[in-house]
């Protein structure tokens, strides 16, 4: 299978069998991300799951860097690692996550879920490989300021063409803020 794939691709300029350095790093980090993600959803120690999530999200930030989306990568670190995971850990601690295994982390339908996930993964991967196996993307040389993932490029595009969604997003954030405050306030008055 792999040999046939390689043969079919050898006519192209870029073979899967002679990967570039970026590709090797990407695959290695990708494996780490995937492993961390699997541990996130499978470990029965709640806080460990959150910490594996940190590894997975941090690895994804590295993947973004490899894809020359520098700005996105730092936003990922800032929002996900700095805030979302801290919030999740906060939530886990407030819901009294125990040290050690909690046997009821997984529900009874985990085998169904596993089957579904495997089927979905098989379908998606087949589809994606079939569709994009010959597609090559040129990564711009990193370091130059005009690469497409730089802060400047993102800022210009964001505030020139995407202003309306941006503003809508700010309204959404405000709504979320108000919602969170209301949710926690009402409880305090009751109890």
């Amino acid at each position: 299978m792999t040999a046939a794939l390689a043969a079919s691709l050898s006519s192209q300029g870029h073979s899967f069998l002679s990967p570039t350095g970026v590709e090797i790093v990407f695959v290695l980090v990708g494996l780490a991300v995937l492993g961390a993600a699997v541990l996130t959803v499978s470990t029965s120690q709640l806080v460990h799951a959150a910490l594996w999530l940190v590894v997975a999200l941090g690895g994804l930030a590295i993947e973004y860097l490899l894809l020359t989306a520098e700005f996105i990568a730092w936003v990922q670190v800032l929002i996900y690692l700095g805030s979302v995971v801290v919030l999740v850990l906060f939530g886990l601690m407030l819901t009294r996550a125990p040290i050690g295994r909690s046997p009821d982390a997984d529900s009874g339908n985990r085998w169904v879920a596993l089957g579904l996930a495997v089927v979905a993964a098989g379908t998606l991967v087949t589809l994606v490989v079939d569709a994009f196996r010959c597609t090559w993307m040129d990564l711009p040389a990193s370091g130059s300021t005009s690469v497409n993932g730089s802060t400047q490029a993102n800022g210009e595009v964001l505030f020139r063409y995407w202003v309306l969604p941006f503003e809508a997003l700010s309204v959404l954030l405000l709504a979320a803020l108000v919602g969170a405050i209301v949710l926690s306030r009402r409880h305090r008055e009751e109890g």
Partner: protein
Amino acid sequence: MHLAYPAVLAALLFCVGLYGVLARRNAVLMLMSVELMLNAVNLNLVAFDVWLRDTLHAGQALTLFTITIAAAEIGLGLAIVLMVFRTQGTADIDRLRELSEPPADGLPPGPTGAEAGPDDSDTASPASPASPASLTGSAQGKAGAV
């Protein structure tokens, strides 16, 4: 770089998240799985943006939006989970059944009602020492009113 690498990684990551959402019972863990799925989408968006060399950077802009929405989602989600935990004493999705429909044959659900599924009653009653009896009483009352 071959587009297949990020695309496959994103697909696998999405499926891992999918498994997590379906298989987890703790609400916070479910939220974490949702984050994984969102991140898979983000990775796809970034990769395709780089591939297409979009002059509008739609992919990256959308990724920013997704990240923002994810932050809002986790904030609200955790607020809800915490409130549920405070009122019900658990963050276990399977036990939060107060609003579930009464069984199909129209009988009022009681503690002896096996119609709700054998594993609900035996997970709910012994494993929820924090939830007082009045809670189940109110649940019955609500279900009866419905």
